[in-house]
């Protein structure tokens, strides 16, 4: 795909989002609430910077020794009775999952929220194999009913105003529903209980996998995660290979950082730490536990010293909640599974030749993402580095490359800079004063500016032509 096509696609998607008043209202309202709650809870917690530093240390240490910790996790999880599989690609992950599904003769599948399964296209693969898949996270269920993708890491239906949800649920209920939260949530609860009761298999993601114990930790707020992992006879965990923390003590740090950064909660409502399937004498839990550890581009990022720290992301969504661009256009406009600042960085790294490379431009480089990140990933710097890679791959196009080549020559030569400045002012004042439309015809960049903004009048003289030395 050509860079121009990519940028035009991004422009078209963002224009559609900008024209969607419901979306902008819903997204703006919710991200404000979340980022305010995060600020309150991290302030109240105290020493937030030290916690971030600790979070970064744990993630960096884990990634630097990931081979060791992954092996440790796999051994401990196996000892606890889980089967651990490794998948190099999305296709391999889907194949392993489908084998497990066939082996269990599973037809009805319930899922708790997982971005990785979105990345892998799990739902479509399962549907293709004749399974009925139901998302049980409320927001995830809403986007599933709407046949959409999640538009936020932790709030999949953030872009949906209440009346859209009401309409979706009414179609599902086959009758009228009142638009209040109790009615709508009550309907979802009833419907989803039925699905939990009859499901053959549960699929979850994994917030963290603890290497020293072989445990899977799930952070949820609705309790659906517990249903998915205890009611069906089989539980399949699909986890990114970077989800590891070395110890339970490290998990404790993450249990403080993640909910506070995500929603401003001191602790997530349900924190499940599961080690192996149901043991003899235990009353609940699945009979079989399978863990699929997915690479799908992650080892390549791990081997890239410039971007390795991106794998430290704990998927809290705090960077989305403070991003001025995400705030205006929401997640779908990014056109990739992961949106917002982390998505703009992670998506092209996961798929370097995919269309998401253009997302590096979908940022003002304001740095709010870095400031919000609980594990201090310098996303604003990474975005610049990705732009650099795009340029090296020729993605900026010839005209842009030529413009910056000229910029490099002129702006490193005070003589040429001064001369061209004088020429520019002369031409504009003589030929184009108050006529920005005149310039817009020839210079697309000028047109892009003037479509929304007035152009400043050029002054009589540049500062360099009028400065006089001295103290007065």
């Amino acid at each position, binding site marked *: 795909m050509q860079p121009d096509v990519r940028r035009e696609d991004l422009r078209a998607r963002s224009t559609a989002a900008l024209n969607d008043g419901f979306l902008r209202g819903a997204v703006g309202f919710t991200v404000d609430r979340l980022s305010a709650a995060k600020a309150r809870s991290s302030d109240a917690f105290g020493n937030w910077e030290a916690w971030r530093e600790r979070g970064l240390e744990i993630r960096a240490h884990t990634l630097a020794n990931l081979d060791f910790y992954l092996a440790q996790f796999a051994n401990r999880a196996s000892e606890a009775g889980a089967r651990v599989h490794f998948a190099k690609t999305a296709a391999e992950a889907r194949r392993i999952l489908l084998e497990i599904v066939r082996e269990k003769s599973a037809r009805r599948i319930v899922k708790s929220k997982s971005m990785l399964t979105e990345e892998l296209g799990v739902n479509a693969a399962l549907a293709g194999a004749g399974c009925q898949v139901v998302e049980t996270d409320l927001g995830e269920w809403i986007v599933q009913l709407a046949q959409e993708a999640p538009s936020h890491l932790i709030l999949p239906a953030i872009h949906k105003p209440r009346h859209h949800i009401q309409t979706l649920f009414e179609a599902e209920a086959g009758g009228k529903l009142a638009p209040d939260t109790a009615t709508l949530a009550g309907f979802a609860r009833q419907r989803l209980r039925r699905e939990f009761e009859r499901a053959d298999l549960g699929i979850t993601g994994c917030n963290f996998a603890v290497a020293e114990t072989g445990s899977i930790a799930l952070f949820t707020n609705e309790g659906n995660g517990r249903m998915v992992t205890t009611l069906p006879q089989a539980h399949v965990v699909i986890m990114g290979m970077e989800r590891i923390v070395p110890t339970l003590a490290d998990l404790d740090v993450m249990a403080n950082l993640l909910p506070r950064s995500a929603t401003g909660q001191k602790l997530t409502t349900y924190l499940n730490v599961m080690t192996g399937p149901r043991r003899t004498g235990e009353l609940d839990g699945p009979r079989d536990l399978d863990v699929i550890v997915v690479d799908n581009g992650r080892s390549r990022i791990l081997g890239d010293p410039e971007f390795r720290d991106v794998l430290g992301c704990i998927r809290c969504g705090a960077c989305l909640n403070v991003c001025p661009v995400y705030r205006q256009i929401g997640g779908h406009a990014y056109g990739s599974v992961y949106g917002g600042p982390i998505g703009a960085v992670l998506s092209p790294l996961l798929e370097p030749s995919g269309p998401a490379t253009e997302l590096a431009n979908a940022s003002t480089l*304001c740095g*709010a993402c870095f400031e919000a990140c609980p594990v201090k990933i310098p996303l604003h710097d990474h975005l610049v580095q990705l732009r650099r890679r795009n340029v090296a791959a020729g993605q900026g196009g010839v005209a*842009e490359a030529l413009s910056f080549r000229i910029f490099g020559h002129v702006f490193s030569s005070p003589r040429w800079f001064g001369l061209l400045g004088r020429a520019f002012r002369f031409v504009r004042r003589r030929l184009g004063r108050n006529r920005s439309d005149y310039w817009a015809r020839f210079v697309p960049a000028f047109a892009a*500016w003037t479509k929304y903004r007035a152009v400043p009048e050029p002054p009589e003289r540049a500062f360099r032509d009028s400065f006089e030395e001295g103290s007065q």
Partner: protein
Amino acid sequence: MKVALFATCLVDQMFPAVAESTARVLRRHGCELSFPPGQVCCGQPAFNSGYFDDARRVAASLLAALEGVDYVVTPSGSCAAMIHHHYRRLFEGDVARSAAAQRLAERSYEFSQFMINVLGVERLDGSFPHAVTFHPSCHGARLLGARQEPLTLLRAVPDLELRPLERADDCCGFGGTFSIKLPAISAAIADEKLRHVTDTGARYLVGTDLGCLMHLSGRLQRRGVAVEALHIAQLIDRAQASGAS
């Protein structure tokens, strides 16, 4: 105190009044000003767009132009942040230029930081009897850490009424080439910022960065909103020039 003024390319060619105000204010506070004529630009437009080679060429010429001066003061938090934070990456592996960049960073100041942290300004002369609100530009505030200095400086202006800006830390939407690559989003972000600005009822919107101010004032003008965007040095200059204290 000998101070070299780094006007920045944008101010030099498009907003010389800002550099003139910066120079006048610094002189009133006892600085002996020079304008090293070799200066042009910090290289940020190319750097932020991913054209590191072109950025390096521009940055190298700035290093050469500003070599050997005692202090460098610039009316832009963004350009100061470029020198402070990104030159290191830009000149990685080039020992001589890395050292020169390090020396330059140690001597370079954004205007308000220089006024407060080096000159130790506590009180300003003159008068500015108007309601003012302040937008902290992201690179100045987040990258450079100039969060308090501009506010301290504004509070030191006699008769000025500083009105707090809602969601002040939010970006204005400029973002350099972002403003022309994705102009609709850029304008939408600006509109939200300007809604908070007009909510304050202030007549003046003050900033420390001409990129952001050009974008915001261009949008204000296009929408016919009667708020004037001013660089902080211009405001202080006007206050001092009014003389009535």
